[in-house]
């Protein structure tokens, strides 16, 4: 029997600037989480968005692929980044990422993050968090400056 899923769990719309969006007390009811972030930023000197799982910033590795309109790039890193781009004030960025098997305790957590800068780039990050702990909180944040007023962040749950 089919099971309705892709359930909206929480949404934050910024009425003031904020550097970190936290979704906490996430139930283990679902198998995957999807975070949809649509935002602008006020700092042009830092070009990444970051994630914390259960407040942890350790044990992350990533591989990334992105294009800026004239060339394609790739890299691997050992940091908790989920996107990279050149920040321009007043521009819209979006990141849609899936945390696979967030509630499982027999797997590292893999994130597939797909992101765009409105007219200047597209890319994907795959991230592995080398912990088997179930995820009960997710933070999406920047290390300098803020997300601006009107930015939206929504979290969804998908059963399996």
């Amino acid at each position: 029997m089919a099971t309705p899923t892709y359930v909206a769990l929480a949404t934050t719309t910024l009425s003031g600037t904020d550097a970190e969006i936290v979704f906490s007390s996430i139930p283990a009811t679902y198998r995957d989480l999807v975070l949809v972030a649509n935002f602008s930023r006020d700092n042009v000197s830092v070009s990444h968005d970051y994630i914390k799982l259960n407040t942890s910033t350790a044990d992350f590795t990533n591989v990334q692929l992105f294009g800026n309109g004239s060339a394609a790039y790739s890299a691997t890193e050992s940091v908790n980044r989920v996107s990279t781009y050149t920040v321009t004030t007043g521009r819209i960025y979006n990141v849609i990422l899936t945390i696979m098997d967030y509630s499982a305790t027999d797997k590292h957590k893999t994130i597939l993050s797909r992101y765009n800068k409105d007219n200047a780039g597209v890319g994907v990050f795959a991230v592995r968090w080398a912990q088997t702990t179930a995820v009960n909180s997710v933070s999406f944040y920047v290390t300098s400056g803020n997300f601006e007023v009107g930015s939206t962040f929504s979290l969804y749950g998908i059963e399996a």
Partner: protein
Amino acid sequence: MPTSSALRSGVKNYARYLNVLAGTEPYVAPTLSDFDLLQTEILTSSQASVTFSSLNSTYGADYQHLQLRMSARSDNAATWEEIYITFNSASTNYKNHAIWAQGGSVVAYQGDTTHIRAFQGANGNNSPTDAFGASILDILDAFNTNKNKTTRALSARLTGDAETRVSFSSGLWINTNAIDSITIKPGSSGTTDWLVGCRFSLYGLKAA
């Protein structure tokens, strides 16, 4: 208890109901959704393949598109594995295109005619313990009998070595038959198995 006697009995707070159904919990309709979990397999023992079957007869009238969400790791004696997918047990008339990142290089590829491939979507058994590849693959108009079947996927494996990859890919099955079965198997050698803990979930997306 009749309400007329409730006050005389000393009860101060009571409600008077006009019929026997009043006061019961209101009926709450099931949550409506256009994205539904259809079937899932989470392996408790190693398997050479996973098959979802009777799809058209069970879901064809209600859903337009399908999505596979997969966490995969095989017993391949390497850090990598590949995910091969076939429809209706057919092994011909497939095409694939992909672009992926490996280290500091970007690779573009076309090929594979015997299956749909979720490129770089699974780990092998020499990768770090508990590390699984991840892949999300959409199958467009899966039950439409006027169209060849197309797929698109976002996949990755993080293996701790040079086999760490992330990919975009598209697939084509040159066949207008409705998809009635989907078989997912490791592609590295034809002899490897999916390991315990692998998860393959099938979702349906409705049309309006």
